[in-house]
């Protein structure tokens, strides 16, 4: 089919066998690519008795039909495996340039099985695939690792590599994608899966061109849309994703003090505007993206200097700043840089540190437990120190590297009461008490407390999309109709993750569902309509649910941490906002045609072609 190379690359690390499988048109029509094809393969090739760090786990990466076309903000790929952090479906969507370089080698997806007996890396290029020894690079951080690997392969290659955290199986280890800049597949511990397979890195560089059905029509349409994207995302470009920190603090969406706080004046010191006025040295963009939301920062002197690297994103500022009450922007920059180098998810790292700070305050952890460190709120030095200890599994970092839920279970006492996770995943920096769509989506998203599963906050606050049944922003704090709204948004974002295209083109209604359908048809030559487009989204979301239900997930797991359901915040503007999760779940299951226990019913599976 046009828009694809129609090939899946398979690498078995146990046997060191490399093979290429034809990508079936029928599969493409049902799942498109990205998260859709990842989910199909993961479901088919793993079973219910899976150890996420065992040889039986399968790591799948897929590009989509938009990858390496002129559609902007699509140089992304999706990675999926059973998560070492949560024990259920793990996934991460990542930008940068790796997806484009990989697709240019003539493949659409990559399936990695088995386990190598010694450290290796995979080098994928136009002329073939090599599994090479990685003993010399094992132990290096992601930046040094990428530099060495490029020198061994191709100077323009993009390197997807783990750092010391992934090697040590930290359960929220990330995969750093190092091209000209660093972009991380952060969530759910995909780096630990690579580490468990003794796979240090996947290096890609290719030059093959992609056949498209009607590239001229595509470009004619894009010429109308791209200037609009540039215009409506201007603030993203200038202030980055953390441009909204102080907004969100004011309206009750920003996480404060392990989600127990109401307001915090420190937010202004760590916002995108503060970054712009202090440490910002430049903007960075994923390949062919007109938004350029990435930050380049430079600290020349002081406690955390010299430092020249990627700046923190909104979610990092939220978890390391707001949740830990750290208002020292340079300390957050340092902690963020260490996460990039060691290969750690900044969000789970920040959230787990905030959780530990609360345990310390409550006397559940003492100085004896923390190697003498004082885990006090707002302590930037401790924040930075703990990042290193977690990554290297030193002292208290050995325990914290398990993630906050497993850490609480190991500590015992009443530590679990202060754990803020859904299905074991620490939340994004969006408060579900402010946006009930996020409450319901956190509870039901496959990977746990993930704001991207629905991106509902943006559609409560501002956006609308008439053609998918959302003619105006959804009314906040309203239970009526919320289930349908959330399910629709989850389905819509599922297709976006199959294509794959960045959420930010939805800002200002720059790119709509109608645009996406038209572009799919121009690239692939299909005659898809909007109904089929949304059905693909529902199919992908439901398949992920099936994967999780096979692992024992049901209604009992579709819930929120007690703090989100019981703790009203104290500010006058932020009271009585507790989401009625029981009612919302009932409505949601009914709308989705799932049983009361949260299992998709046969009629729904049959309708989606998932009955087998």
């Amino acid at each position, binding site marked *: 089919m046009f828009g694809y190379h129609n090939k899946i690359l398979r690498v078995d690390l146990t046997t060191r066998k490399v093979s290429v499988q034809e990508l079936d048109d029928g599969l493409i029509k049902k799942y498109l690519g990205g998260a859709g094809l990842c989910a199909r393969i993961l479901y088919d090739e793993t079973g219910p008795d899976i150890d996420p760090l065992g040889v039986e786990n399968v790591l799948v990466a897929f590009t989509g039909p938009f990858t390496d076309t002129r559609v902007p903000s699509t140089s992304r790929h999706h990675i999926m495996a059973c998560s070492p952090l949560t024990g259920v479906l793990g996934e991460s969507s990542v930008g940068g340039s790796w997806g484009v370089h990989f697709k240019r080698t003539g493949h659409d997806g990559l399936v990695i099985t088995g386990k190598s007996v010694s450290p290796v890396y995979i080098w994928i290029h136009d002329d073939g695939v090599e599994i090479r020894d990685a003993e010399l690079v094992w132990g290096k951080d992601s930046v040094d690792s990428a530099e060495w690997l490029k020198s061994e392969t191709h100077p323009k290659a993009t390197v997807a590599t783990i750092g010391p955290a992934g090697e040590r199986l930290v359960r929220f280890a990330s995969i750093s994608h190092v091209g000209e800049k660093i972009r991380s597949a952060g969530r759910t511990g995909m780096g630990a899966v690579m580490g468990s397979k003794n796979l240090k890195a996947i290096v890609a560089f290719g030059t093959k061109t992609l056949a498209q059905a009607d590239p001229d029509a595509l470009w004619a349409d894009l010429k109308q849309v791209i200037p609009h994207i540039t215009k409506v995302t201007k603030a993203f470009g200038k202030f980055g994703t953390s441009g909204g920190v102080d*907004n969100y603090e004011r309206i009750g969406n920003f996480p404060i003090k392990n989600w127990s706080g109401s307001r915090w004046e420190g937010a202004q010191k760590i916002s995108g505007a503060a970054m712009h006025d202090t440490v910002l040295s430049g903007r960075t963009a994923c390949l062919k993206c007109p938004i350029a939301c990435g930050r380049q920062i430079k600290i020349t002197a002081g406690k955390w200097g010299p430092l020249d690297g990627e700046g923190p994103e909104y979610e990092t500022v939220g978890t390391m700043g707001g949740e830990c009450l750290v208002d020292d922007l340079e300390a957050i920059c340092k902690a963020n840089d260490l996460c990039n180098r060691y290969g750690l998810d900044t969000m789970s790292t920040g959230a787990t540190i905030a959780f530990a700070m609360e345990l310390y305050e409550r006397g559940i952890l003492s100085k004896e437990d923390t190697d003498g460190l004082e885990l006090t709120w707002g302590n930037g030095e401790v924040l930075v120190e703990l990042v290193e200890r977690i990554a290297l599994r030193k002292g208290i970092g050995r325990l914290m590297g398990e993630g906050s839920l497993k850490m609480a279970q190991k500590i015992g006492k009443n530590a679990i009461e202060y754990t803020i996770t859904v299905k074991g995943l620490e939340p994004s920096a*969006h408060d579900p008490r402010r946006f009930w769509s996020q409450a319901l989506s956190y509870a039901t998203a496959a990977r746990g407390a993930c704001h991207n599963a629905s991106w509902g906050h943006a559609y409560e606050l501002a956006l609308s999309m008439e053609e998918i049944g959302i003619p105006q922003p959804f009314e906040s704090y309203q239970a009526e109709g919320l289930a349908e709204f959330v399910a629709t948004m989850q389905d819509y974002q599922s297709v976006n993750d199959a294509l794959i295209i960045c959420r930010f083109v939805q800002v200002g209604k720059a790119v709509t569902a109608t645009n996406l359908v038209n572009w799919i048809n121009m690239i692939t030559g299909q005659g898809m309509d909007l109904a089929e487009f949304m059905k693909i989204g529902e199919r992908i979301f439901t398949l992920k649910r099936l994967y999780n239900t096979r692992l024992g997930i049901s209604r009992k797991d579709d819930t929120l941490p007690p703090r989100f359901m019981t703790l009203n915040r104290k500010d006058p503007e932020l009271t009585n906002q507790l989401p009625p999760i029981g009612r919302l779940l009932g409505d949601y299951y009914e709308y989705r045609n799932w049983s009361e226990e949260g299992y998709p019913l046969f009629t729904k599976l049959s309708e989606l072609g998932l009955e087998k």
Partner: protein
Amino acid sequence: MRFEFLGILKQIAGSPLQVVQEEPLRLHDLLGPLSTRLGEFVPYGCETTEAQLLSNLSFIRDGKMLRMEDRIDKDDTILVILPATGG
């Protein structure tokens, strides 16, 4: 009625916009003065549609989002923010 600009909009629009008006007005009626402060964030000035406006800006009163037809009273304070940021 008072419009308070938050976050980066404060850098663009500056100090709060005070509109002296005894009778209630619709948000729609205030697009003119808002566009003088916020420029292209109010895409077509007084002609902007609700979808165009709300995809660029959010207006919040007492924690609730406002729509174009919502009435604003003389003592109301409205927070104006950029709608979608974050990761």
